[in-house]
């Protein structure tokens, strides 16, 4: 008999007052009992609408059925058939616009908490005895994966399982991409990402950090001199955008990438860290996505007195995950909707003193279907600030394009591929944010998996 409660079993979370001053994980996860109870809400629909909402088609009703039975190992087995990073996706996927938006229970109450169940199953699995080392027969053929974000990790994982000899090249000193330099500890503990990478290393992955491809070695050199038969490019969309308004280069103005990299990768969140960063004071964050929420909540945790998010559309259009917006509001982040900066104001030392904004109103719908904000006349106002963080988007870095002859890209910098991730260069594949521009973990992971399959096909055909 299904559990008829119209509401999800609530996610245990640390109290806003307590958590908003430290970097420990906010949501603490279901217990086994809670997971079994929540799984009981699933109606086991035969046509599986939820699976249709998942970019990698996880067989959701089947894994939830196993959770309901208490067979967590079986549940993990179902998820891992199509997903490589369940502990990550369970935490960071926008479930409300994907699987959970299609859930039949959601028509009359809350949908089944699919994301929370996925996280529970993955965490349960990770707590079990260590995975045994690789037993897959190696085929001795070498492939290169450039970039170690979700796209690269998923691609490498599948290629390893197929028996390829995989080397991953990462520009930074630590692997994980946005999962380690962008998404903060309180939302995605770094230990989870490191565990994932260690697991791949046990399966035979060669990881080379400090390798900026396009500088130290080019894609052509990887293939012609270093003996890699195929290359996957998963270099993300790491180039920060600015608004090009006056004052953006003042001291105290950060791109969200810089601020978050200092906090996460360079560990400014650890007390006594040598990494310098602006702590305390009044902080304004410009933008409304996950990146803006993360930057705002990090600033708060570093001791800011007041953190304000300035967003040019209204609350309904916020692109961030619903849970993050909710958490940010609970923690006391102030939202100024329908506001747009026109200038960052300086003090006598050319440091940030405030941000000059105008109010907006929503006009006609634009190409994306969202109503376009237009400036309201005579609506200027200034928010005093000691630091401003610009979180208005990123685009793919031009380095790979500019150093790889014949690699086609779109005007915004995204690498052109077919549906299988093949680029205009034979043997070179790409996926994730490097292709689409800034998107999501699950789409990047899915693209990595698709490309792995295509690379396998390419190498088999090449062999004949």
């Amino acid at each position, binding site marked *: 008999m299904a559990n008829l409660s119209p509401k999800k079993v609530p996610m245990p979370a640390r109290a806003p007052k307590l958590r908003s001053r430290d970097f420990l994980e906010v949501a603490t996860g279901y217990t086994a009992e809670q997971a079994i109870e929540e799984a009981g809400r699933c109606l086991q629909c035969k046509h599986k609408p939820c699976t249709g909402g998942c970019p990698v088609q996880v067989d959701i009703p089947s894994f939830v059925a196993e959770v309901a039975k208490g067979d967590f190992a079986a549940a993990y087995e179902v998820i891992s058939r199509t997903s490589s990073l369940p502990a990550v996706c369970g935490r960071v996927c926008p479930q409300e616009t994907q699987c959970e938006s299609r859930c039949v229970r959601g028509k009359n109450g809350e949908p089944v908490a699919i994301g929370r169940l996925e996280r529970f199953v993955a965490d349960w699995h990770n707590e079990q005895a260590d995975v045994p080392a690789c037993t897959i027969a190696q085929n001795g053929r070498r492939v290169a994966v450039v970039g170690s974000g979700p796209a690269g990790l998923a691609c490498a994982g599948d290629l390893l399982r197929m028996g390829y000899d995989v080397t991953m090249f990462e*520009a*930074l*000193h630590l692997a994980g991409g946005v999962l380690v*330099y962008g998404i903060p500890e309180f939302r995605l503990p770094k230990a989870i990402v490191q565990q994932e990478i260690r697991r791949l290393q046990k399966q035979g992955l060669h990881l*080379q*950090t*400090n*390798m*900026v491809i396009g*500088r*130290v*070695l080019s894609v052509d050199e990887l293939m012609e001199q270093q003996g890699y038969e195929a290359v996957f490019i998963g270099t993300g969309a*790491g*180039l*920060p955008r*600015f608004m*090009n308004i006056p004052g*953006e*280069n*003042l*001291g*105290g103005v*950060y*791109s969200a*990438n*810089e601020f978050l*990299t*200092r906090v996460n990768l*360079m*560990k400014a969140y*650890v007390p006594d*860290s*040598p*990494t*310098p*960063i602006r702590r305390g004071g009044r902080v304004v964050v410009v933008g409304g996505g996950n990146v803006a929420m993360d930057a705002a909540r990090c600033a708060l945790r570093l001791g800011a007195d007041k953190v304000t998010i300035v967003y040019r559309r209204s609350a309904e259009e916020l692109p961030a995950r619903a849970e993050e917006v909710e958490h940010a509001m609970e923690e006391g982040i102030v939202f100024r909707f329908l506001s747009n900066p026109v200038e960052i104001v300086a003090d006598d*030392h*050319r*440091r940030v003193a405030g941000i000059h904004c105008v109010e907006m109103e929503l006009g006609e719908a634009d190409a994306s279907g969202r109503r376009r904000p237009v400036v309201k006349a005579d609506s200027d106002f200034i928010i005093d600030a000691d630091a401003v963080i610009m979180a208005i988007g990123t685009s793919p*870095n*031009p*380095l790979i394009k500019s150093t790889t002859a014949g690699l086609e890209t779109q005007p915004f910098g995204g690498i052109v591929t077919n549906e299988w991730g093949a680029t205009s260069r034979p043997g070179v594949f790409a996926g994730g944010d490097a292709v689409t521009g800034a998107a999501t973990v699950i789409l990047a992971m899915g693209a990595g998996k698709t490309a792995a399959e295509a690379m396998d096909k390419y190498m088999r055909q090449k062999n004949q």
Partner: protein
Amino acid sequence: MHLFEILQKEILCPSVVRMVVKAPLIAAKAQAGQFVILRVSEDGERIPLTVADYDRIEGTITIIFQTVGATTLMLSRLMVGDSLQDLVGPLGRATETVGLKKVAVIGGGVGTAIAYPVAKKLHEQGAEVHCVVGFRNRDLVILQEEFSAVSDRLITLTDDGSFGEKGLVTDALRRLIETGENYDKVIAIGPLPMMKYVSLLTKEHGIKTVVSMNPIMIDGTGMCGGCRLTVGGQTRFACVDGPEFDGHQVDFDEAIERSRLYGEQERHAYERACNLFGQEVR
């Protein structure tokens, strides 16, 4: 794969150290004007340092640095046989020297270490090279022999006159220009105020000037934007668009303010490192 082992270490003057580091892949590609980013310890800072020299056959690069903060202090304590935690490069664009016939290379302080490979490259391609190098006092003078080997004219100055001429590099450069030396280009590398005043001087005389910017950096690949500066009214990233820019276009005052952003926190970290090593805080 690569170990980044320190193969040679030499104290050039009490606060300036030269190290030769094993890094075959970087040595194979490095060119004058490019830089590397390194870390000394797990959880340490990432700092950019210019490639002062390279040996493609031995697979080594040379770095020269002044102990100005916590990380450079820790770096200076490493010995031959120790290894760097991380080393990545070569980053940034190489110095453009093509077609130059007569050049003035201006170096200030430890910036002379960065100016040296540029002067050497120009000398090797047959250009007439005039070098003007300035230091605070005689104890800080470095690379005199190296510079004389590649310069057609070498002027060394100190602020207090304790070595070479007394005065600033701009004094010497003005004299050279006013006595009729005609340069295709002036290349200035050193502290921000020095590069600012060199650029103001050469602007008066309409001589093309290139400066090497060394702002705060993290990744060195264009990802963080922390290294940005305003050049000709446009935002540029020093790590990928530079580090060299047209000195007449750079907003130096802004760059100076940005470089001071973490003064206090850096000072604090430096003092902690000094305590750790039992060294006197300067």
